[in-house]
């Protein structure tokens, strides 16, 4: 096999790198110039827009009101606005596939209120304009959206959702979703980027102090925007509360497809004990490898979207399994939590040859929340879009069987923010023992994560008071 990835080896090579000539004779094209550019425009044909306002009418079934368009006598239409070809498509496709599988099973078991659930799926390609366009094309055809990829994308339709009386589940853990002023019709799952960073930095600080008797230093390297900067805000908040020195502040210095070399060099120069990252897995891999090349020896942790178990299959796998503390919003695939067995059984049947991606688990959560809202609406006798919105305000706390922390969908901003995240180690040994990337659900393979603090709430996060998002759009 033509690849070998060992941290020790890598470190050793770095230490002994000779300089008697460069293997760099050609002025190489930099990564930035060769990296993937902005996502292509969607290839999805926009759906025919139903422009007429649906007239509410009494359904044939006594007691359940529908509009006859988004919910008919036999079908409930649900929308999915997903990045199927852009930077997060690797994970998002798993997530959407998982929803498809769970809805298929749900339909096979009778559907909801005697109706089959049909999913209208479009590819937004992580493009803001496409997201808005496709939303407009679809909104009058669906009773709610069970998935909306991207925080800025979802934020851009937040007001429209309220106007159109539609719900959406955002794929993005922006701390503003719990703010009724922004996320009135958004149903978040799990905690948020800000809390996640606060928990991780707190945990690193605590364990470092226990081990070395002193506070660590940290570096921060994130994408721009609500994702990266919400996460950076949380990391800085924890650092300030705990007295942790920020050796390098690389907030908003990373971007998908960008060149992270300057950030990597700064991280290495800072000598920080740990670096908190909020980016995509590929940029993270670039950042880690370039930081290593620049001599960095500290540890790593990062926001949930920054890491993928598939990185264990890359040359960085051995290093990451030792140096990266995995932070997650919800239990990874196969985790020992009560609700996982049901989820796993469906996944194993639907995807027997699929790698046990955590995106598949997240897809279940979206399905489950959507199903619960629709079922509540049906129980209340109103499956119109407005009825579904109203139902969402009455479901209170939702328990996902330990897969995701309980979410409150009632209450004020502060009380509705979930404070719990999970911390794991990515185990290359576990990963390889199951066949590496060849591990499949049909064989009972599980995520390569081993628990460190799977249900962690730091003191700082627990006491954080939310009266505004950690990061405010445009700030």
């Amino acid at each position, binding site marked *: 096999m033509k690849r*070998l990835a060992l941290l020790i080896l*890598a470190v050793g090579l770095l230490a002994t790198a000779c300089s008697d000539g*460069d293997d760099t004779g050609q002025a190489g094209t930099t990564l930035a110039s060769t990296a993937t550019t902005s996502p292509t425009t969607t290839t999805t044909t926009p759906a025919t827009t139903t422009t007429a306002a649906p007239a509410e009418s009494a359904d044939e079934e006594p007691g359940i009101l529908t509009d006859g368009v988004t919910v008919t006598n036999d079908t409930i239409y649900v929308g999915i606005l997903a990045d199927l070809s852009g930077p997060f498509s690797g994970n998002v496709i798993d997530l959407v596939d998982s929803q498809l599988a769970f809805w298929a099973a749900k339909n096979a078991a009778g559907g909801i209120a005697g109706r089959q659930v049909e999913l209208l799926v479009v590819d937004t390609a992580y493009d803001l304009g496409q997201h808005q366009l496709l939303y407009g094309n679809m909104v009058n055809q669906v009773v709610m959206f069970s998935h909306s990829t991207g925080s800025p994308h979802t934020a851009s339709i937040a007001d429209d959702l309220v106007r159109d009386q539609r719900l959406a589940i955002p794929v993005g853990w922006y701390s503003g979703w719990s703010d009724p002023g922004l996320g009135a019709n958004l149903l978040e799952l799990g905690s948020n980027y800000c809390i996640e960073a606060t928990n991780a930095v707190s945990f690193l600080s605590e364990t470092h102090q226990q081990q070395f008797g002193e506070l660590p230093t940290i570096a921060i390297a994130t994408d721009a925007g609500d994702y990266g900067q919400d996460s950076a805000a949380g990391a800085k908040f924890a650092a300030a509360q705990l007295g942790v020195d920020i050796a390098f502040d690389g907030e908003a210095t990373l971007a998908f497809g960008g060149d992270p070399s300057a950030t990597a060099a700064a991280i290495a120069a800072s000598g920080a004990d740990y670096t908190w990252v909020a980016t995509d897995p590929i940029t993270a891999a670039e950042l880690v*490898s370039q930081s290593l090349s620049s001599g960095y020896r500290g540890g790593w942790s990062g926001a949930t979207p920054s890491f993928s178990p598939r990185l264990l299959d890359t040359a960085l796998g051995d290093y990451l399994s030792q140096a990266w503390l995995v932070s997650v919003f919800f239990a990874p695939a196969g985790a*020992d939590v009560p609700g996982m067995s049901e989820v796993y059984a469906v996944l194993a049947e639907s995807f027997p040859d699929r790698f046990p991606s955590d995106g598949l688990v997240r897809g279940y959560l979206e399905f489950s929340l959507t199903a619960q809202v629709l*079922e509540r609406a049906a129980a209340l006798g109103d499956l119109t879009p407005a009825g579904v919105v109203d139902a969402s305000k009455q479901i209170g706390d939702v328990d996902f*069987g330990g897969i995701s922390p309980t979410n409150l969908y009632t209450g004020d901003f502060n009380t509705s923010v979930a404070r719990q995240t999970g911390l794991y180690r990515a185990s290359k040994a576990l990963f390889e023992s199951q066949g590496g990337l060849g591990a499949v659900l049909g064989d009972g393979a599980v995520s390569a994560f081993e628990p460190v603090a799977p249900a962690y709430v730091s003191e700082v996060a627990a006491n954080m008071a939310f009266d505004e998002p950690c990061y405010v759009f445009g700030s």
Partner: protein
Amino acid sequence: MRRASSATPGQLDNAETTSEPVGPEPPDDGGVGAPDASLELNKGPDMVGRSSPEAPEPAGLLYAADVSDSPHLDETLSWVTTEEVQSTDPLAGQFDHAAWIDETAIATVGTVAAGTIAADIGEHPLVEDTRHDDLEVLYVRAPGLMHTDVQLLTAAALASRVPVSVPPLPAAAPEDEAQQPNPLFVVGALGLVALIIAAFAAGGWWTSRTGEDEPIAFGDVGTDTVPTQRPIGAIAAPTTTVAAAAPVDQEAVLASATEALRNAGYSGMSVRYEGDLLVLEGVMPATGLDAGYFSRVEEITSVISGIDGVQQVSTRLFLRGDDARLRSQLRALSESTPVEFPFASADLTPESRNALQAVADAILANPGLRVLVAGHTDATGSPEANAQLGGARAGAAIQELVRLGVPITRLQPVAYGELFPDAAGTDAENRRVEFEVAP
């Protein structure tokens, strides 16, 4: 965002902290405990199919699972029947060892004898207990159709390392649905326990205690449950049943179906048999789903459902391709036809261009997956400069792959430089680009 408490920085040991313990938190009960909260994945009173919210709850529903053919409980758990019962011993005399789960008893292994279930053999005995070796049947009682019970069974079965299954219940007649909820609704609404029955639906998915082919019938639900059972996990719409007068020539059906799919332009899909069940699987193009995924699945399935001999079609059509297949193809190509570069250069050689053609073919044959293009160098030179050269090599390979028709959105460069050499390789062999399925 502000700090609400008066705690000072670093006060992690504060006795008043709300932090949870740091470190692993293995459940102390294997997941069987805390039935009232931790197992409730889907709360709500609205889980009774078409019943109106005010529909009366049934007096009690018992699911019974025959595990007699799973002496070590590492085999499939097969539900055999269900019925409303008033007594707690419908299996009296039929089995010697049973597990009983209801709302109050978390899990009890007992002996079914003379119409009674002996209880109190231990706390949570389904967990890490060798007595499972004797277990023959699992009960779960669901008075009022509280799905917590089913979840309890699920959790217990998981703790017992038993795959979980769904009771194969007959669909209620339409006129009965309002009064008598179909338990499948319950199970389905739970987040859909397990889909193992899909594998069994084609035949032989239940087993009798005596090993005969006759199903065990508890109560008045009998063999008529089988024909109504549809594999979950197979998509709802496309499971099609056609009466067959003669034994199916599976090879002929596969050939016809393959040709039909090809003629219809569905290149990323294939068919195979799982027992008697024809499985249609592959990658669903992401386009055209704005009119409805299940409608699209049905449309595709219709291409083959009319073929002579097709009795039942189960579909696994999703958006993502097979990671493992592409991974193995890319690795094999790295071995057989590596993409290598001259010293200090990111220029592709003729050999490398040929090798990239095979890589492009592999990527294009596995839609829905992205590929990491990793640029490596030998160890000559500074790490920083080699990282840059690695990036340049990755970029050159990507440019060629794009020229060969691979969408750039499916390719991601990463510059490893000298970090990850092939330990057994020469310097020349380390001047390379490798391909990995992207995270």
